């Protein structure tokens, strides 16, 4: 007997298990949340956020930490172990964690609050908006599993977190690329007087930007690599992907520039518009996020308003609840892998 999905085409229920040949997945089999982002042959750094926060706390008494039952999964445990009396385990209760962070900020502290991006953006939104952002309090919300960085499925994939938070006044939104940038950004957002949402790459995080002599500056987009045919405008770990794609495309005589935009809001419109206005390049935004409401649309809108009219394409996640599966498989399936980016760019030229 066949069961038809009750509500039509959106059901993912299959009549039977059919293994697929994972393209470029290297035999990945796990959908576990601890699946590595991109470790093949690359240098990594363990828990860069946690170690940076611990360093910061050594210098600043006002730094306190909170987590909603996810300290070990957001690298907050490094800080918590070093400063147990400055860490507040708030339990599985994101609303009170965010509200309490606001209360601590009211009393002069600089709280770092961690959870998963889905829970901060979807569950705690009203609390972040009214208790923190409306009053411009210096709370730093740092969230693991941004975009598609877990194969657990939509409950844990924060594919629209940037869209949600870009609309919140006063909030600075940061999407770092790698371990070095995560550590630098942790110090930079602590120095910023207002509220911040930062996407977190946790655990063993690749070290990519160091060899380019890059240093994070809050609110600044920076050219990592120049090129004459394509201008990638990217954020988060997608900068690491487009740097690899640029190498790949260079072999096919396609010369790609990479403009890294780790601060999604406020957007560095001046630099982005100036780079896009340099003649003759296809502008390709690349983000670990739905194509709706994230970096791509932010850049498109900024260029339109600046009067910069250029060919424009987006690499990003589709407007769908995504599948469960192994991360490399999913990244390829949804167009975020180096292979997929390279193929897309060639098809657009």
């Amino acid at each position, binding site marked *: 007997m066949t069961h038809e999905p009750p509500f039509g085409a959106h059901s993912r229920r299959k009549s039977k298990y059919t293994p697929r040949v994972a393209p470029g997945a290297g035999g990945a089999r796990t959908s576990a949340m601890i699946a590595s982002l991109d470790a093949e042959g690359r240098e990594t750094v363990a828990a860069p956020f946690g170690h940076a926060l611990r360093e910061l706390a050594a210098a600043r008494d006002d730094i*306190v930490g909170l987590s909603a039952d996810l300290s070990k999964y957001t690298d907050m445990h490094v800080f918590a172990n070093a400063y147990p009396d400055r860490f*507040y385990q*708030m*339990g599985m*209760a994101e*609303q*009170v964690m*965010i*509200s*309490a*962070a*606001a*209360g*601590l*900020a*009211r*009393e*002069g*502290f600089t*709280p770092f609050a961690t959870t998963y991006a889905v829970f901060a953006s979807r569950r705690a939104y*009203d*609390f972040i*908006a*009214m*208790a923190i952002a*409306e*009053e411009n309090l210096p709370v730093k919300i740092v969230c693991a599993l941004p975009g598609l960085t877990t194969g657990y499925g939509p409950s844990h994939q924060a594919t629209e977190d940037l869209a949600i938070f870009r609309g919140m006044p006063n909030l600075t939104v940061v999407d770092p690329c790698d371990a070095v940038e995560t550590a630098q950004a942790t110090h930079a957002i602590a120095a910023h007087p207002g509220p911040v949402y930062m996407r977190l790459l946790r655990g063993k995080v690749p070290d990519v930007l160091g060899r380019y002599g890059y240093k994070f500056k809050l609110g600044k987009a920076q050219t990592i690599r120049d090129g004459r045919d394509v201008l990638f405008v990217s954020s988060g770990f997608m900068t690491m992907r487009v740097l690899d794609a640029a190498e790949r495309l260079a072999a096919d005589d396609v010369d790609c520039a990479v403009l890294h935009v780790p601060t999604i809001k406020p957007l560095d419109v001046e630099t982005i518009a100036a780079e896009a206005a340099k003649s003759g390049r296809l502008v390709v935004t690349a983000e670990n996020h739905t194509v709706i409401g994230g970096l791509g649309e932010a850049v498109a809108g900024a260029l339109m308003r600046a009067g910069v009219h250029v060919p424009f394409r987006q690499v990003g996640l589709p407007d769908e609840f995504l599948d469960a599966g192994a991360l490399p498989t999913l990244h390829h399936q949804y167009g975020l892998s180096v292979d997929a980016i390279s193929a897309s760019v060639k098809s657009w030229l």
Partner: protein
Amino acid sequence: MTADPAKAGSNVSLARRAWAIRRNALLMGEVQGQGYIGQALGAADLLAVTHFHAMRYRPGEPEWEGRDRFYLSIGHYAIALYAAMIEAGILPDDEIATYGMDDSRLPMSGMASYTPGMEITGGSLGHGLGIAVGAALGLKRKQNPAFLYNLLSDGELGEGSTWEAVMSAVQWKLDNLIAVVDFNNQQADGPTREALARTPEAAKWAAFGWYAQEIDGNDLNALVAAFDAARAHAGPEPRVIICNTRMCKGIPFLEAREKTHFIRVEPDEWTKALAILDAEKPE
């Protein structure tokens, strides 16, 4: 100057303070011709006790580090708190006429960014107690002995986030936190007790681990005793005072109205209400 009005505040009785709060609120309600006057009249007695008996603050220095904090979750009760803060000298009484008007410092929903002495931005219900948890933690971290008062409403107890905060306050042994629930059994769509199961009130808080008292929130003697007990309680529990109040208390023809959450009052009725109040001015 440390204004501890309970001790330093002359011979003005709490009954007279409550009367003045009601009168200020009526004058503000008249400016707009409508509003949350029912809540203000109902909460006037408990605000007389917080602001003229229980709390330590300096009227001219709303940010004084040693002050007891007063967090108003229920933004629409701003009219009531403004009335109390005007009586306390935190806000000047000549701003009564600006209530809810363009560019006023007294918006209809209380916001920290508009009004001196307004500690938080309320209005989205279920936020205040959680913020209070964090601030109470902060006070302890600073070894500041101030109390943190949070005025919340019965309707607000329907928000799940309130109960996250209820549990958290117990977890952190926040003996410096005093929650005050104005239980008037009225929310936007009707009686609170017909909306979500709300009884038994005090037993529920006590079961969560709070030092809970339930009183007639329009009885000044009961209020004084309850606030004294809440402050003096020796245990590590956070404290809650559930105040059963009557909407529109003190103005009988308004008390009799069925719908009192947001009431419209005819122009001549403001005069009538003020006359009733003025006829019963306490010593």
